[in-house]
């Protein structure tokens, strides 16, 4: 079975920004044991090393754009581009580091949950909560059979 790493990121003290953490708690409960699920506030260079030991990396994030509650799936690759590093990285930048530093190119997806409220708080809006089951479904299908065939790159799920 593929070694799978799920990286849920966001700020759990900023309402819907932390919805990926909530999804991660569910994923820890339902995913088979080879899957490793972690929660972080932001993406940092150390994650590149962790990702290099995986066959499949799934990033789960909250998005400020899009219809609240919608879930967007996107295939990722370590493409060259214009990169900057200050305090955090994008998923693509983590993959570039994974490739250049550790010669590893795991398959990777980004699952984004469009949030509605990003104010201070630990509660999620109903729209964000409703999206969680769809996130679980997408992640499970990705682990079972690659990129979910029903979803085009960048398409809403």
């Amino acid at each position, binding site marked *: 079975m593929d070694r799978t790493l799920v990286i849920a990121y966001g700020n759990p003290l900023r309402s819907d920004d932390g919805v990926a953490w909530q999804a991660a708690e569910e994923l820890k409960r339902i995913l088979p044991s080879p899957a490793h699920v972690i929660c972080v506030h932001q993406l940092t*260079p*150390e994650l590149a*090393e962790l990702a290099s030991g995986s066959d499949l990396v799934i990033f789960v994030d909250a998005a400020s754009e899009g219809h609240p509650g919608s879930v967007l799936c996107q295939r990722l690759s370590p493409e060259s581009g214009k990169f900057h*590093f*200050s305090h955090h990285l994008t998923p693509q930048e983590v993959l570039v*580091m994974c490739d250049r*530093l*550790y010669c590893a190119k795991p398959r990777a997806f980004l699952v984004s949950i469009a949030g509605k409220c990003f104010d201070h708080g630990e509660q999620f809006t109903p729209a964000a909560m409703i999206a969680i089951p769809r996130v679980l479904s997408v992640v499970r299908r990705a682990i079972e059979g690659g990129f979910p065939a029903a979803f085009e790159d960048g398409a809403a799920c």
Partner: protein
Amino acid sequence: MAERKTIVIDPVTRIEGHSKITIHLDEQGQVEDARFHVTQFRGFEKFCEGRPFSEMPSLMARICGICPVSHLIASAKACDALLAVKIPPTAEKLRRIFGLAQVVQSHALSLFHLSAPDLLLGMDADPAKSNLFGLLEKDPQLARDGIALRKFGQQIIERLGGKRIHPAWVVPGGVSDPLRPEDRDEILKAIPEALTIAVRSIAWFKGTMEPFREEIACFGNFPSLFMGTIKEDGGLTFYDGKIRLVDATGQVVAEGLDPRRYFDFLGEKVESWSYLKSAFYKPKGFSDGMYRVGPLARLNVSDRCGTPRADQELAEFHELQRTAILSSFHYHQARLIEILYSIERLEQLLNDPEILDKHVRALARPNSLEGVGAAEAPRGTLFHHYKIDEQGLIRWCNLIIATGQNNLAMNRSVLQVARRYVKRDKITPGMLNRVEAVIRAYDPCLSCSTHALGQMALQLQLLSPQGAVLDEVVRS
């Protein structure tokens, strides 16, 4: 006559927090003044008022995502003073381990992720490439080493504190849980590789210095005082000890100062153009009392490290200059020596026969209404000072953060670099990058250091295109 001009670098990149630099040119295009403005505000000193003192370590850890452990330790020590307890010896050793792990990860972030692009690619490198990705293209091994050292420190923090960022394991009276044998063994297993990387990194750094002779000469290279905490034998310490100050010649100005009486010898001043207060050594007054803290200052005030490899490196470091080592460029090398020391010291502490002892917390109710806690954070000496009421609620809080203590020196450094490199006739990215790079050498953490509320004047100026003040609102 030519007009006066102001060059603004906003934001300053590759540092922790938000700031800008202004460089003021006179009519001849020469640098007249330069300032490092901290533009963010946090306010922790004020909004913790009314909270139970027992919450303070966890609240204070939220000040910073890079060095939460230092705030935890200083805050817990202030709370120990409120309880008026002596914490169990094993708890103290565990706190030391926690703090040293943070030194490794924080210094690695500063050097490898933020400053190494300047050192490896050069100060004149294309700004678009002068970042972590430029670094990994040029020297992947160095980038991997930086990641490995960060991971080493973070994993220790996670093993002890339960999480990498904002752990709450350090509590008033000690720590909340003892060290598990399996965690001790796993950390010890990782030490040989971390040591190898630290030694390799120091060798790399020493090999890179030659092209930077000009920068070394003007990156904060001026006389000042240096302050740090030392052990009774003059050795380097991050947890506990007495304060020593040396002057630019390396002579001791003051020693044996009790950090719990910091207010007797340190003062703070507010400037209208920055949210960062400026600390100074009181006996010499504001400005003349400018002092530096952090890795360079600690190595300037320390007679020894107390671990074999770090002591060798310290002896060589002290050979750089017969007096105190003045150039702030050398903060980088000092940081690496402290990483090496921290790894060696971690090994010593983890092999201590008492380290797995289960008695790690002293329990008590408040026995004092005032307490001060001090520790050496990665960036320098850190003070937490609390006053509580009879119910144990915080009534007053003062934080003196390393970055504020370096504020006067950072401003002087910016001016020195600007005068050397910035000329009106031609402004290049490399010149401006050097102005930023000297700030990076101090590794300021602005999130940590901007908390005074009610003392900060608000000054709003409406300026004409020629710079004339058309209107002004001042709220003191």
